[in-house]
Every structure is written in C-alpha cells, then in structure tokens.
C-alpha cells in the first residue's frame, strides 16, 4: 500500500539532500522546477496500511514538458528520448532547486505508472488475482481516464525490466495475469484464473516427483503434503479435500498423472508429471522453486541441476526447431498466395 504523501516527500527530500552532487548535463536542468512538489504535505502516517493517493512525484521524464504524446507500441529502451529523460532527471542533485507547484500531466502519470508497477509486482509475488477494479481502486484512483495509458506503460516496464508479460486473462471480467516471458511455454500459472492459489502446492508435488527420478510413490507425496498440513480425507479451507485434488482435479487438468505401479501386488500408485506440467513449466522452474523454499540456489543440488540444464537445452532446441518450421511454413504459404497479404507469425 502506498504510504502517505508527507512521508514519501520527506523521504525523497532526505535522499536528495544526502545524495552526492552529480553534474547536470541537461540544458533544461534549471527547469527542474517544473517537477513541482505538487502535493501538499499532510500528516505523517506510520504503519499506514490503508491505501492513500499515490501522490509522490516520479522524477522521470520531468523535463518532457515539451514532449508530446505517449509513445505507444513497444517501448524500446534504447530510444534515447524516453530513456534519456529517465536517466538524466533522476533526483536533482543541486540542492538549490526549489521546485514550484507546476504540475505537468506527464509527471502525475509517471507516478501512477511507478505505483502500478509496484502493485503488479506485489500481486505477482503473492500469486494474487489482478483485477481492473483493484487497480483502479488502489492505484489509478482519480486518473480513471488514463487507465489504459498508465497500464500500458507499467506493463512495458514490467516486460522490459522483469520479463513479465501482462495479459488480459478474462476480458469480460477484466482480470489480468502476469506471465513469465522468460519461459515462453510457462503460461499463466495454473488456476490463477480461479483465484485460488494452488500453484505452490502443485509446484511442490512436481518437485517431489522430479527429485524422485521423475516418479513419486503415493506415500512420498502424502508425506510432503502432511508436512504442509494437508491430510487425506480432511477438508482444507483453501484446497478442499487433498486426495480429490491431487488424484482427480490435477489429473483431469493434465498436470499430474496418477497410475498404478506396473505389476504391483498389492497395487500401489505413483505420480508423474502430466503433459500440461511439461508444457507449462520446466524442471528448472521447479528446481528454482525448491531452492527458494530451502533458502538456497538451484546449483546446490548438482545432480538435479544437471538434469534440469539438460532439459532446458532440449527445450531451447525444440523451440528453435518449431520457430524454423513455422517460418518455413509461412514463407511457403506466402509464396503460394502472392495476392494475399502476409500474415504475421506468432512464433
């Protein structure tokens, strides 16, 4: 939740004062007055858990007073325009600059963009549902008219800096989801649409399977689930009844395979990764998850790390082959139908 205005302003003032002087290269340095401490100081909140208007000023693009419209389309960070202002205006070093209250439309939007980036990152980390309503209420507030521009710019930042893609998962209910671009096949985390955080549980089970040479006996899975407080036959307030979840629901959704161990007498059962798990995540992802849970890094588990790396290589090769194939098909089609405009290929 954004903190109160005065608190943020004071913090920024302090940072500026403490920061060492750096040379101002921009000609319009004196125009930093344009930034403006637009917002009046208010009472100082301490543990302010209620969302307040995001009223601090993001110094970036301050001097874009003359800059025109929003630059739509993929924000290329090498575009000197935007990036230049980003860098040059960070924190005016000269302490003589007394900002006047001259609000430029741009600045207020910048603040909202930064706030939205933080908001979305938090939602992503906690695997919570991202709704348009939530964004409007907690971040955008009175700038409803500029919702799309703010969202677009925030999503560009997230994509370029963090490799996270903001997608509209449900256009009717205005639900968004952040997808990890670094793994093109790692689509929207399972069941984010439903809003129920089953991901951690699924990742844990996939981890148990992976670390047991890709097949885990049912007892092993239950041992892990018991540690997490999930017991067979006992309703859990989030997950419901665990046995149904892992042997029916996840299986139906193709995340897990549940089968009898061949030639087992008395029959016992094992779990394997389902085709959807293979498609939507990877051994490396699961290992990263495990490492994080154990407060370490993936390379701390050399054998599994090697296997995960091999898996990554295969996937990369498969992706490259698929791209090449698609490209070949596209050019073949284009050659075959010269009259029709070539369609762009989503590789």
């Amino acid at each position, binding site marked *: 939740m954004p903190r109160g205005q005065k608190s943020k302003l004071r*913090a920024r003032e302090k940072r500026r004062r403490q920061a060492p002087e750096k040379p101002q*290269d921009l000609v319009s340095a004196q125009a930093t007055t344009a930034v403006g401490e637009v917002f009046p100081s208010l009472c100082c909140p301490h543990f302010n858990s209620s969302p307040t208007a995001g009223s601090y000023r993001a110094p970036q693009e301050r001097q874009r007073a003359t800059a025109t419209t929003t630059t739509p389309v993929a924000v290329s960070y*090498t575009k000197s325009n935007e*990036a230049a202002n980003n*860098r040059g205006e960070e924190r005016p070093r000269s302490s003589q600059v007394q900002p006047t209250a001259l609000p430029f439309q741009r600045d207020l939007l910048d603040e909202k963009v930064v706030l939205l980036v*933080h908001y979305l990152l938090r939602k992503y980390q906690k695997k919570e549902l991202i709704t348009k309503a939530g964004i409007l209420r907690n971040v955008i507030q009175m700038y409803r008219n500029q919702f799309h521009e703010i969202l677009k710019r925030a999503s560009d930042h997230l994509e370029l800096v963090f490799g996270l893609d903001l997608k509209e998962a449900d256009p009717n209910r205005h639900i968004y989801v952040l997808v990890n671009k670094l793994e093109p096949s790692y689509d929207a985390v399972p069941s984010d649409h439903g809003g129920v955080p089953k991901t951690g549980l699924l990742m844990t089970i996939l981890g148990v399977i992976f670390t047991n040479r890709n097949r885990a006996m049912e007892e092993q899975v239950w041992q892990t689930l018991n540690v997490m407080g999930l017991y067979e036959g006992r309703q859990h307030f989030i997950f419901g009844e665990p046995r149904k979840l892992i042997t029916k629901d996840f299986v139906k959704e193709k995340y897990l395979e549940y089968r009898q161990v061949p030639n087992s007498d008395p029959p016992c059962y094992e779990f394997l990764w389902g085709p959807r798990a293979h498609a939507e995540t990877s051994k490396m992802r699961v290992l990263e998850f495990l490492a*994080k849970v154990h407060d*370490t890094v993936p*390379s701390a588990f050399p054998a599994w790390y090697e296997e995960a790396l091999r898996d990554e290589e295969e996937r990369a090769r498969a992706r490259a082959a698929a791209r090449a194939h698609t490209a070949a098909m596209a050019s073949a089609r284009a050659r075959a139908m010269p009259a029709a405009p070539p369609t762009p290929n989503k590789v």
Partner: protein
Amino acid sequence: MEEGRAERRRRTEAPSCTQGGARRAGIMTDVHRRFLQLLMTHGVLEERGVRRLQKHCYRVHGRTAAVEELEDFINNINSVLESLYIEIKKGATEDDGRPVYALVNLATTPVSKMASDFAENELDLFRKALELIIDSETGFASSTNILNLVDQLKGKKMRKKEAEQVLQKFVQNKWLIEKEGEFTLHSRAILEMEQYIRETYPDAVKTCNICHGLLIQGQSCETCGIRMHLPCVAKYFQSAPEPRCPHCNDYWPHEIPEVFNPDKEREAGTSKANKKPSRSRQH
C-alpha cells in the same frame, strides 16, 4: 546482448547523463530479468547466494556470455531500476558482517510489504517490538517485554500465546532475528526500513561512527558514547595493536571481532552458522 569491457566500464563510470542512460537501459537481457525475478522471490540473500544466482542465470540464458563482475552487474541493473523507485540494496549482517542483498521498493513505506501479509494487530506488534529494539541499549528486546505490550495493540485483541507465534512468523519471514529469547532486526528489515526508521524515530535512532549507517547492534565507547557496528569495529581496528576510540582516543575496552572472510568460510565448509557464542552485550 554483449558489450566489450571498455564499453561496460565507460557506462558504469559515466555520470547520470542522457547518453549514458540510453545505453545503460539497453543492457537488460534475459539474464538480468531472470536474476531480478529470482532475487525478488528471495526477499534477502547473502552475497554467496547472489553470486550463485547470477551464475545460474547466465547458465540458463546466456551460456556463452562471460559472467559480469557482480558489482557491475548489479549497478547496471540498478541504473535501470532507478526510474521505477526500486533498488538492489547491499548491506551487511550486523553480527558478523556478511554482505547481503535485497530488492527494495523505495517508494512506499517498507511496512507495506508486510502489510499485505499481516493483520493490523500483528503489524502493531511489530511496531511495538521495533520501538523496543530501537530504544534498547543492546539492540535487543526481550520476548517478555514485547509480550507485555500485547494489551496495547490496535485491532483485534491478541493473547500472549498468539503473540509468541506472530513473533515466530516475523522470524520466519526474515523481519526479526531471535537469540536466546530476545529479538532484534533482521538485516532484511534494516535494509528495507532504514530510511523509515530514521524518519520515524529520529531521536532514538543510533548510527555507526564509521559508516554512518543505522545501528541496531554494536559496540560503544564507554567514555564518549559513540557507537560502531561490529563489522565496522573489525575493519577499523584490523591491524591496530592497541585499539583506541576514533572519537575520544580512549582505550577501546571491547573484544575486537574478526573481519568477515568468505574464503575462510568456504574452506571450513560451514554454511551460515552462528559463529558468535553469545550476543555481544558490549554497550
């Protein structure tokens, strides 16, 4: 996206000028993005872990690329994060000077990070503990003293038993450290909340005479009262035959700790173990 060493050096040495910014912003590759994603999930990570994380990201995404020097790597990422009011901050554990890193959100109150994980009364419990820690001489607040404040908490009424569990939650989430029934701030809390603490408790806050950073645990001069972090003491008096207070020149009466040596630790094969036998009650 590979640049030569010269270009990299030039970039990191350049002052914040427009051209430098444009070039710098173009450095984000999947290696950096993955690193950011993973660092974000950890909250706080020791330098050793950060290096391994960096190598891991290179292995997964940029096999052939040479692993950039960690400091440059992080500075480059920070230059891009700056306009988003986010920073990879480096600090050190107060007891033995291990370097740690955290991805810090500079714009909002750090408690906002906690606010979504904890209830109102739990946050208030944290604030009470924080105040006790800051006011204390040793940087530690006893469990008893914290629990005695349970009646004053905002929000839903909390029993002492419940409060004990909440304190453990804080420890698990790396906001507090517990030693022998007493609590102090985790290095993560110090990294994320330093600014907030300085602003909120300007009179009670203590700072280190050497690095001028926020000080929770440390040693103090018995004559003139200045304080120093234990790792700062270690570095300052490293080869001094007779340690003397940098301020009043009086004899420094406390045990001088050793400077943190990551290599020595690797040899000994110890993981993050608590080497100090007891907390230094050296105030």
